[in-house]
């Protein structure tokens, strides 16, 4: 309940102040989709410094099938278990089922699902389906754009499907996790648009949390990020998430940096 309050207060504050936005979130996905018949290519590098410095590289392809359905395919490579090697893949699909548009504002809702595989050994009850675990995830996203400000909330349920032989002796085995996030994005630059070639600068602030529904163990991260969009098609993200509260031992993605570049190719599919 305390976590819920923590999440609701910023929503109430943001709705109360007439604000303005961007919704190309760095640590979460908006309810909006990419344009139909378009392809996006992403390369993400993320890393943690504890217990040792280790990084993961995620090549990703995004496909907009139609205005409502899009799919991401990801591959995971990391040196978290020794040398750099391929550790798994993930398929993510998002379906936008509600769209209320107005001049410079919109409200969208989408449902998403993810299926992931990972060869990594298991040693925590935390679930991260972007590299660390095998399993399924489903959830809902609600995004409100108010001119230059975009607010988004995500709720998800993750279920791990790990083989017992992957479990490190004496360590917990992941089972299920509830995820929730609240994201805000703000278009800083340009103040006035002149053409498509002007760089856009967006600032993001996200609150990311997870709870194990069986025992209530949770964590909550704050994640600021900065983003530059070049030529209205190339996107560069730089972010950092740090834990502000939590009691999940050996959790994933704790105090992690993220760097990403994304290229968009509009109308390339027939």
């Amino acid at each position, binding site marked *: 309940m305390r976590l819920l309050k923590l999440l609701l207060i910023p929503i109430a504050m943001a709705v109360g102040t007439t604000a303005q*936005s961007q919704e190309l979130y760095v640590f979460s996905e908006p309810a909006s989709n990419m344009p139909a018949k378009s392809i996006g290519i992403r390369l993400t590098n993320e890393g943690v410094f504890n217990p040792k410095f280790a990084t993961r590289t995620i090549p990703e392809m995004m496909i907009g099938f139609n205005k409502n359905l899009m799919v991401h395919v990801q591959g995971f490579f990391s040196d978290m278990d020794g040398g750099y090697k391929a550790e798994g893949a993930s398929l993510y699909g998002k379906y936008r089922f509600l769209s209320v*548009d107005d001049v410079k504002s919109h409200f969208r809702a989408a449902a998403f699902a993810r299926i992931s595989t990972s060869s990594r050994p298991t040693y925590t009850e935390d679930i991260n389906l972007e590299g660390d675990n095998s399993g399924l995830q489903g959830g809902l996203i609600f995004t409100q754009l108010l*001119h230059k400000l975009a607010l988004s909330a995500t709720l998800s349920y993750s279920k791990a499907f790990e083989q017992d032989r992957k479990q490190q002796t004496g360590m917990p085995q992941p089972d299920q996790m509830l995820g929730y996030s609240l994201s805000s994005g703000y278009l800083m630059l340009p103040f006035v648009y002149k053409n498509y070639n002007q760089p856009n600068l967006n600032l993001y602030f996200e609150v990311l949390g997870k709870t194990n529904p069986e025992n209530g163990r949770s964590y909550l991260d704050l994640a600021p990020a900065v983003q530059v969009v070049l030529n209205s098609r190339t996107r560069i993200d730089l972010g950092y998430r740090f834990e502000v509260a939590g009691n999940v031992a050996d959790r994933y993605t704790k105090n992690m940096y993220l760097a990403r570049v994304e290229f968009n190719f509009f109308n390339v599919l027939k």
Partner: protein
Amino acid sequence: MALTYALLRQMSNKNINYIFMNTIKNLIILSIVLFAGKVSAQQISSAELQVTGLTCSMCSQATEKSLKTLDFIGAITPDLNKNLFAITFKKDKAVNIDQIRKKVEDAGFSIGNLTAVFNFNNTKVDDQGLAVVGTNVYQFLNAKSQTLNGAVKASVVDKNFISGSSFKKKAAQLKSTSYTEGSGLVNGKKTRIYHLSI
């Protein structure tokens, strides 16, 4: 006997006359339809499009690139601050208004307003406000029993060409199935009807 014969001859003469006149009438109608069909190719010359649900230039770029896949679109000039697109259409291609809406929706957004310049050539608007121009059927909301000539600026006020709330308001006010469905019977055939406001 002779009288009956004379009567019969007169009747068949009348019939031939009738058939002949009808054929001419039909030919005239056919040529008008053909002529109108040709004119309709360049009937809509330009449009101003207000796209809703976006603020960023990446979104505008996606919308513009989606629109440019339509073969009848000539040039697009965007106003990125107001999310307006000024479109000129090619002279030799027929403009499909629904396709414009589809392309905006494909990019992930919606049309808030579409005002186009229609070039009419002796277009008769009947007492119900209905006009047939080539293959397009227009229902005028604020014009009837008149003849339209030359460039006329009109807004398309159909569903998904204005905001959802504006459409609901208009639908309640008009109480017309042709408006809520965007189509109706024209000469006994179910036809797409664009509702225009001058």
